[in-house]
């Protein structure tokens, strides 16, 4: 019953899930001008990787990433996927903690952070245990809700725009390509879950291209809303430019005082579903690593959620969480390059007859 539209919806959610908080700051630190070029280059690299990945997966119809790796050999799974699972749990931990702090600063300054952590992780784990089909079906509704709010946010920010803030955007520089931080950006898009889905029909590339273009447009709006409101010099000094930009908006006729509230709502939708996807992936990886143990997927999800909760509680503050999160994203970027490549090369090799199928 899996439909490609639902998969695309999850793809959009996961790709946007971290964009809100740290993505703009990284872009601003990479370049002074032509921010759009950075986003476009990152989007282009991501598109190539998605294409490679889908192309590679197509060579193994009805197989998931896990089946393919176990075909390559047990040690390959251990070598690539176990560290990947560990990295995912680290990402969940840091991102949930980071988002919790942000949500606290928007809505609930007096509430203890552990209660929010518990709430978010509980819902994510519940969703992950319910299975990927549930994630897919709810994704459509959540994407519609969130896209509506993003549009509302973008359009309401028009009132504060000053076009002169980006008047210097003429000088084209590609120095950012050599900055290692640029490669970290790849880690912000998460498409690796595509390999974990079994589908009757193989995935096709065009819908993901359209979705990617949509994601890039939204990411551009995340970059340019603060830029248009504050200008580059001000924006680089801010920890969370997008939050501050939306906080500055005040529309006279609107009943709500703070537009940031809507931003907070989108954050919640994103973080819950993205964490659920990752928890589910961890469950799948653990099950394929230990096929003989009779533990169910849900067992591993609960174990890793508990682990993540404890780790998130132990993090001293948001700055540390952000620092580690960026490391995690860097490592994620490595997996994003290496996993599609191995699948693609292995698929290519097995087609040539270089590798024997174990059917």
């Amino acid at each position, binding site marked *: 019953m899996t439909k490609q539209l639902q998969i695309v919806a999850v793809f959009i959610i996961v790709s946007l899930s971290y964009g809100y908080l740290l993505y703009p700051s990284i872009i601003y630190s990479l370049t002074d001008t032509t921010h759009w070029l950075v986003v476009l280059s990152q989007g282009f690299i991501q598109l190539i990787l998605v294409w490679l990945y889908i192309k590679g997966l197509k060579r193994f119809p009805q197989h998931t990433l896990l089946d393919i790796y176990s075909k390559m050999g047990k040690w390959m799974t251990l070598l690539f996927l176990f560290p990947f699972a560990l990295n995912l749990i680290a990402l969940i931990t840091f991102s949930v903690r980071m988002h919790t702090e942000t949500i606290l600063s928007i*809505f609930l300054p007096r509430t203890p952070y552990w209660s929010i952590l518990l709430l978010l992780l509980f819902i994510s784990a519940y969703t992950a245990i319910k299975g990927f089909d549930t994630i897919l079906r709810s994704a459509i509704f959540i994407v519609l809700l969130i896209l509506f709010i993003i549009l509302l946010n973008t359009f309401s920010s028009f009132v504060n725009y000053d076009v002169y803030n980006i008047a210097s955007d003429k000088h084209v520089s590609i120095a950012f390509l050599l900055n290692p931080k640029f490669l970290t950006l790849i880690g912000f898009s998460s498409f690796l879950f595509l390999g974990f889905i079994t589908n009757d029909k193989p995935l096709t590339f065009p819908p993901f291209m359209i979705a990617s273009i949509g994601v890039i447009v939204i990411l551009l709006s995340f970059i340019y809303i603060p830029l248009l409101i504050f200008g580059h010099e001000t924006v680089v000094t801010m920890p969370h430019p997008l939050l501050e930009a939306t906080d500055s908006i005040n529309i006279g006729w609107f009943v709500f*005082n703070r537009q940031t509230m809507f931003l907070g*709502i989108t954050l919640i939708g994103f973080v819950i579903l993205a964490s659920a996807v990752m928890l589910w992936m961890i469950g799948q990886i653990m099950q394929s690593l230990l096929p003989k143990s009779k533990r169910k997927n849900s067992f591993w999800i609960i174990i890793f959620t508990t682990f993540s909760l404890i780790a998130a509680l132990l993090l001293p503050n948001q700055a540390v969480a952000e620092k580690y999160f960026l490391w995690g994203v860097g490592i994620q970027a490595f997996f994003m390059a290496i996993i599609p490549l191995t699948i693609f090369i292995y698929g290519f090799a097995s087609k040539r007859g270089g590798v024997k199928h174990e059917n």
Partner: protein
Amino acid sequence: MTNIVNELTNKFSNHHDFFIEEELIDNTIVYVIGFTTLVDVTKSKLYIQQIAASSISIKAFFTNISNELNVPDEQLIKAILTGSIIILSKDATRNAVVEAFPQKLGSDISESKNESPVQASIDAFGNHLDINVGMIRKRLNTERLCLDSYEVGQLNKRKIYMLYVKGRASPELINKVEQQLTTVQRDIETLDDLNNQFGHRRWSPVSHFSATELPIQAVDALKNNRIVFFLDQFPFALIYPNLVGDMVSSANDRNLTFALTVMLRALRIIGILATLLLPALYVALVSVNPELFKTDLALFVIQSREGVPLSAFLETIVMVILVDLILEGVVRLPKSVGPAVTMVGGIILGQSMVEAELVSNLLIITITAVVIASSAVVGMQNSLYLRLLKYPILLLASVFGILGICTGFVLTIIYLASLTSNEIPYLTFRLGQKGDET
């Protein structure tokens, strides 16, 4: 007396409505056996005598009176229990099961009680299975409409009819349902028993079936690739699987113009959202996140709560439960007392609560809106389950404010997304045509 008659007399010795009467036909004594509560004895005997008069021999009599001749003993007992009469010759060489004149136990086709269709036929399903199926056949006269019948249960064999349109409903689904119905181990007394038979939904407020009284609704479901069940002595068609769209659309809507249909459905969606979110929004904005409002609006809200001693959450939960109690009370009470409760609940209680400053005016408005909104959806059970789902969101909102509303809403979506009936997700909007057209 013969063996079988003895056996029957012993078996039914505790049944005072059991009768054995002797008739003389062609100089042979035959026994007429049945239940007086199920069979109209006078009419049936008259019928037997008429057949006897027109038959030249006892053999001819038996051939004329029934097609079911010389059946095994167990089937005779079953026939008696299901409201037929049996005729036995004294030497026990012949027997016949006769579809006698039944006692009139069902009601005629009546108007629908739970649904009130606008601009449509008001016929409603009744208790009798065959009449219900007849009502469907009259509206959907195609040879592709198939009917499977099952008898399930241990103590009480309950008849279940399954209707589907061949070529529309997926054969895979029909097979699965067939399997589930043939493996029933317990008595199917209520809808809940049947629900559990179709997959574990003991604690879920969402049923596998949507029940309807209106033939037009059932026919529409059949045309849209779904299955319809009828239980005997249950005056509803059970549409399987129940989908989320059933809450906002009824077949009857389409008797209006397209624009009006769209408007009605949009209103129902607003109703769903309002039922789930409004009470929670009140609590969140009054007690946890008042700073989100514009200053003048926030001041207005605070003013309306001036002097109210209860906390916003307590105030809301008391009112919500009270209103749900009133609704339940009005439903259960006889029609003559219901309006009195409505008046006492609505006017006296509501008015005095505001005057005593126990709850704020704003809350009264909110609650009223919620009650009206929850009734806008199609189907009584849908309205009930929405009313239940608003409580978790309310609870989360009282702790986490706006954040609680969002997480509660997302959790509700995820919960509904996790529901499936035989692998058909509840959040499907339309079932595809799976079967072969031919």
